């Protein structure tokens, strides 16, 4: 246990990451994007003429609008950043020719992987936590329960950790950062866009057959279980919540994907002497 925490890789990686320009540039950009969308969501929520007519504005509506906007903006922004932090983590060692030094030291392959993984996830957690004040704004307006916040953060962390593991696997597979990062973004595209398209086809077939899109069975939704946004859809109020009601399956799939990616990455790292 002590070895996991006092892993020298973590200290080295953190030190190097925090010295990079992106250490302050990315959080700044991230906060600007999240603040901008929150402000946009707030202004939409208080717009009384939305939908073509006058409506009564309740504090809860504003709270929910801010909450949903922030959690979805956060996960999209962080998903875009996850490959940047993870997919180059091992390839940079190959490019700098420092990997032989690591592999011939007494650091084990899991220790090297763990150090890279923890630092990638920690940086994303730093960004996620910097957006927390904006999320808690929704409590001031009401309509959001603390458990929803815990659920949203938990889901986001699980999905991001899994994507980081996939990024590290890409990094172990390729020699160049540009290739591994491109591969990781490609996989991310498959998980987000391709799963949605497949779901669209299946849902359309289901509604044509049954004459309604209601109560879609699990197998129709199955492609979406691998979509990083799926677990958060269960938070959305109204009809969608009833439709997308299998977050546990999605969590389990992401956990399994992360574990598999970790195992493959470590195996590849162990054999990377031939790649040097």
């Amino acid at each position, binding site marked *: 246990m002590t070895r996991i925490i006092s892993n*020298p890789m973590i*200290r*080295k990686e953190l*030190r*190097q990451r925090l*010295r*990079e320009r992106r250490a302050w540039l990315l959080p700044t950009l991230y906060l600007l994007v999240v603040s901008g969308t929150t402000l946009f969501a707030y202004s939409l929520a208080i717009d009384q003429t939305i939908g073509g007519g006058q409506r009564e504005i309740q504090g809860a509506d504003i709270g929910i609008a801010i909450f949903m906007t922030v959690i979805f903006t956060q996960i999209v922004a962080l998903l875009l950043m996850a490959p940047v932090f993870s997919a180059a983590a091992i390839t940079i*060692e190959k490019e*700098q*020719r*420092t*990997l*032989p*030094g*690591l*592999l*011939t*030291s*007494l*650091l084990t392959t899991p220790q090297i992987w763990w150090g890279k993984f923890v630092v990638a996830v920690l940086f994303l957690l730093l960004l996620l936590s910097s957006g927390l004040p904006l999320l808690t704004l929704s409590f001031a307006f009401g309509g959001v329960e603390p458990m929803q916040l815990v659920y949203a953060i938990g889901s986001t962390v699980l999905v991001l950790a899994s994507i980081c593991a996939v990024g590290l696997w890409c990094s172990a597979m390729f020699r160049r950062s540009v290739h591994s990062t491109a591969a990781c973004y490609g996989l991310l595209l498959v998980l987000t866009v391709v799963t949605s398209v497949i779901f669209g086809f299946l849902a359309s077939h289901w509604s044509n057959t049954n004459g309604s899109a209601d109560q879609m069975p699990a197998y129709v939704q199955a492609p979406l279980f691998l979509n990083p946004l799926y677990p958060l859809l269960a938070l959305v109020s109204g009809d969608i919540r009833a439709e997308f009601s299998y977050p546990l399956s999605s969590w389990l799939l992401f956990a399994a994907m992360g574990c598999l990616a970790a195992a493959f990455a470590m195996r590849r790292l162990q*054999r990377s*002497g*031939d790649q*040097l």
Partner: protein
Amino acid sequence: MIEVKDLHKEFRGGRGLKGFSLEIEAGELVGLVGPNGAGKTTLIRILSTLQPADSGSATVASFDVSGKPASVRAAVGYLPDVPGVYQDTRVDEFLEFFADAFRLKEPRRTAAIERALERSGLEDRKQDFVEQLSLGWKQRLLLAKTLMHDPKILLLDEPATGLDPLARMALREELKQLHAGGITILVSSHILADLEDICTRVVFIADGANVSEAECSMRRGAVAPATLRCQVEFEGPASAADAVIGRIADARVLERKGGRLVIELQGGAKDASAFLGELLVAGVTVIHFDARGPGLEERYRRTFEERPS
């Protein structure tokens, strides 16, 4: 200390090792020499546990490289052919990281870092970023890092590549000192003059296999017992030297160029000394005498020129 038997490792294109064998005793400083693609780097990588062999066996410090890689890593210091450094870390941070990577505990950890700083001569620059160091200083830092965990064996792959003459000389002296301190060293290099200067033995490798040890191994200062090749350089007329050579049975002049003669004699080191003594008694002004036979460069040229490329 290092035992390699019938080691095979094949890469695409047919390069690699094809049944290479080697034995290195404790305290030896062995040079590994061969043309590009001969398998030097592959051999050193297998011995340092970076690459697995396809077949054959390799033991380092009595540990099998594939069965006990962690024990081998603890006993070995490995410096790759193109070593990398973390440019964005400070010198002391770089050494601290590797002290932790080799699981050195206090007070050994601090002592190892201080010793590495002293060894590399970077005590005054420990707060500098590694990227600020010249190639020579980086190489010294890397060698110091390689020695941090007190390895019994050093595996050095082309350590002098890219170094300027002064840095090369410093590296050569450092290796001599380490060898004198009892560390067993296997070093591959294309700089034959350096190897000739520091190695106790040089092993030739070509196409992943041994080139006859009898043909190519060289012990510095040792003289072949049967046939002796002496190089003599002198000032003045050659007649006095010729008279001495004429008095020695079985002496044969192989080469003659101005004041330089290459002579083949029968015998050993004592006969070489006696020959030199006779030259001096005969009044020949000897300015250079070498009875070690052909140098490494000559052996290398002869060996690899004869091999089909």
